């Protein structure tokens, strides 16, 4: 079949990219969005640990980096469920797939929006939780750096899982099953860095490895997400 071509208006790819980012950040923080949910979960879940392991300051200080990181990871995970599913359910995914930006670019924009809207607030609030968990004074800086460097990997890897499970009813459990094993290296390097600082050791090496993990996730995350999203359009 043939169709005659026709001239089209010029498009601005960066305009599209940041348009999607703004749209998703806004939706995440509007009614029914996941931004507030993940933040509340983060706060509540961390405060459970002193109840669980006892309030001794030394014990809390020892486990603080791990607890904050694990709970941040879980908070990120529960918000990933809706990353593409809302768009899939209301038909917006059809529009996203037709954007001149291409689905890989769209996925990248949505991942960035997820990180900004949902994960960044966790990073910002983490020093408060550090205080609750009696984190050693010197470790706050490394905790923040490790979260800033490492959490993009959480959004990027999680996006692949979210895209794979987008058409699955109640895909949240399946999503955790797919994504959590892939989170292991990020968690190890991040907590390794904070623990190193708390033990007065140079955290550069684990931080560098953490950055490498995030970069690798950046390379494959949007592309794999786009491939998985294509499946749900068929």
């Amino acid at each position, binding site marked *: 079949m043939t169709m005659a071509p026709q001239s089209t208006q010029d498009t601005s790819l*960066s305009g599209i990219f940041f348009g999607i980012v703004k749209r998703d950040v806004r939706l995440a923080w509007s009614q029914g969005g996941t931004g507030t949910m993940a933040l509340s979960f983060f706060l509540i879940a961390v405060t459970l640990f002193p109840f669980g392991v006892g309030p001794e300051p030394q014990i809390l200080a020892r486990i603080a980096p791990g607890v904050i990181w694990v709970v941040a990871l879980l908070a990120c995970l529960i918000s990933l469920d809706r990353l593409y599913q809302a768009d899939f359910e209301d038909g917006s995914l059809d529009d996203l797939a037709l954007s001149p930006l291409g689905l890989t670019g769209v996925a990248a924009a949505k991942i960035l929006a997820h990180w900004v809207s949902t994960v960044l607030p966790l990073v910002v609030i983490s020093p408060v939780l550090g205080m609750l968990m009696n984190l050693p004074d010197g470790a706050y800086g490394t905790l923040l750096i490790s979260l800033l460097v490492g959490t993009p990997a959480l959004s990027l890897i999680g996006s692949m899982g979210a895209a794979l499970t987008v058409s699955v009813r109640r895909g949240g459990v399946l999503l955790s099953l797919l994504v959590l094993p892939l989170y292991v290296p990020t968690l190890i390097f991040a907590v390794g860095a904070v623990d190193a600082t708390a033990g007065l050791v140079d955290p550069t090496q684990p931080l560098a490895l953490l950055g490498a993990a995030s970069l690798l996730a950046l390379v494959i995350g949007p592309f794999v997400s786009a491939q998985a999203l294509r499946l749900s359009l068929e």
Partner: protein
Amino acid sequence: MVFERLSFTLDPGELLYLRGKNGSGKSTLLRLIAGYLRIHGGTLMVGDDAWWRGDAALSEALIYAGHDNALKPVLTLRENARELTRLMTGHAVGDVALADAADVFGLTGLLDQPVRYFSSGQRHRSNLMRFAYLKRPLWLMDEPTVGLDTENREALAGLMRAHLDAGGMIIAATHDPIGVEGAMIDMRDYQPKVSLEEAWL
């Protein structure tokens, strides 16, 4: 897989209706042209170039409206239109173009209301509105007339005629030609005789 010996050409200013009962593959063919589905054996040409899915040229040439209304309930109609325009062009939608588009389907008073308060008919018209404010040469419409009253059918027909007169192209999957002249493909004629799946037997 789904069709056999199906072939057609669409020139500027032409309208093509896809007819057939539910499950005959009207929607599938539309989604195939839109690039959502992969073509197994067969070609889709634009001028002299093959058209493949994910092609930027493809996405800049067409708009698609399917069964789902692709509206965000928490956003107003205006905001929904803004988001869609930005998604497709990277630019802001012109207020005049938007007001004109809303006027076509009698949605002017609803422009600044959140979509969650809309009835299903209003949502459908809000979805059709995209054809008026997004300037694209090829329109792919899946059951555009469902749930439209006489007045809005006329409005839609007028919109389609204007698009065709301006050299646009439309492919519409519907059993309901709404008074606009167009060619017709009956999907029944292209049902596959041999299923590819039979290779498993």
